[in-house]
């Protein structure tokens, strides 16, 4: 058995499952922490994006958890539920900035080659050039941890098909 039963494994809880990698695992956690701490895209927006990507990946266990940094006053559980339900509309209270980030997250998750200049410009309009870069970096890391969590969960549970 490659690893002991470490309990829950999703994008928010991978540290125990990867700890055998030693300093490499610490470096991976450091990157994870940095994407949530950068000042250009709020943790609240990133958390909505994480839920959107998880929904697209069919990673249902991700949808129950919330990143601690997203418990700030600007985080809305109503919006989180709307993202999970696929109702990302102005009527549900999403701002143009949130909708741009979520649309970008969706295309990034499906195929980064599908991202258009117009959508990238819309993200830059709301978050700035550094915000576009920070969002792209964050989406890559978030999606990676969701995928790793899916794989390791199956290895741990014996539910591989």
């Amino acid at each position, binding site marked *: *058995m*490659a690893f002991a039963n470490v309990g829950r494994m999703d994008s928010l809880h991978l540290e125990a499952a990867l700890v055998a990698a*030693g300093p*490499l695992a610490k470096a*991976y956690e450091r990157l994870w922490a940095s994407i949530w701490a950068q000042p*250009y895209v709020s943790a609240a927006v990133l958390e909505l994006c994480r839920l959107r990507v998880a929904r697209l990946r069919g990673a249902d266990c991700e949808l129950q958890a919330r990143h601690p940094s997203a418990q700030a006053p600007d985080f809305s559980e109503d919006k989180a539920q709307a993202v999970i339900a696929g109702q990302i509309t102005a009527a549900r209270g999403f701002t143009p900035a949130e909708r741009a980030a979520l649309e970008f997250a969706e295309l990034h998750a499906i195929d980064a080659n599908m991202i258009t200049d117009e959508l990238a410009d819309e993200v830059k309009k709301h978050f700035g050039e550094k915000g576009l*870069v920070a969002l792209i*970096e964050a989406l890559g890391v978030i999606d990676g941890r969701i995928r*790793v969590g899916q794989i390791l969960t199956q290895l741990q549970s014996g539910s591989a098909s």
Partner: protein
Amino acid sequence: MSVLPRAGVPSVTTGHVIRDSSLGLVTETLEPIVSLAAMLFQGHPLRPALVELLRLRNANAVNCVVCKAVRYDVAKQDGLTEQKVSSIAAVTSLDALSAEEALLVEFADTYLLHPERVDAALATRLRALPADQLAHMAIAIATFNALSRTAVSLSGMPETFPVTEIAVPSA
């Protein structure tokens, strides 16, 4: 797909391929990315040639032109050949690969194509790996995938790029 870059680069250049890219604009995440990228090729528990197989399999799947063309010198020194690179670029056949290499490629393909569905036979082989090796594989494919999709998302890549051997960017 645009050919123009969607973000600029730092005004001061350092000669470091990551620090001088658009990623250098976000200083808060830059050093974590640089140090992680450097550590992936340190040689333990996965040899550099095997790490490079994971990276190139991902580069082909993402269709990142520059990622596909780069070869890290430590991987070449560790025995990576262009014949081996051609073998992993082929989608269908793993016949030219060793059992260890084929396992890495199957793991990469599962991550890239259907992480929600790990084949039972593959799962058995993965569970038998030492824990540090499996963790290294997981962090490596996740990092390579994130970085190559970052490059594609930022656009501005050429349509073609010659095969180029470079050193692993230092931390």
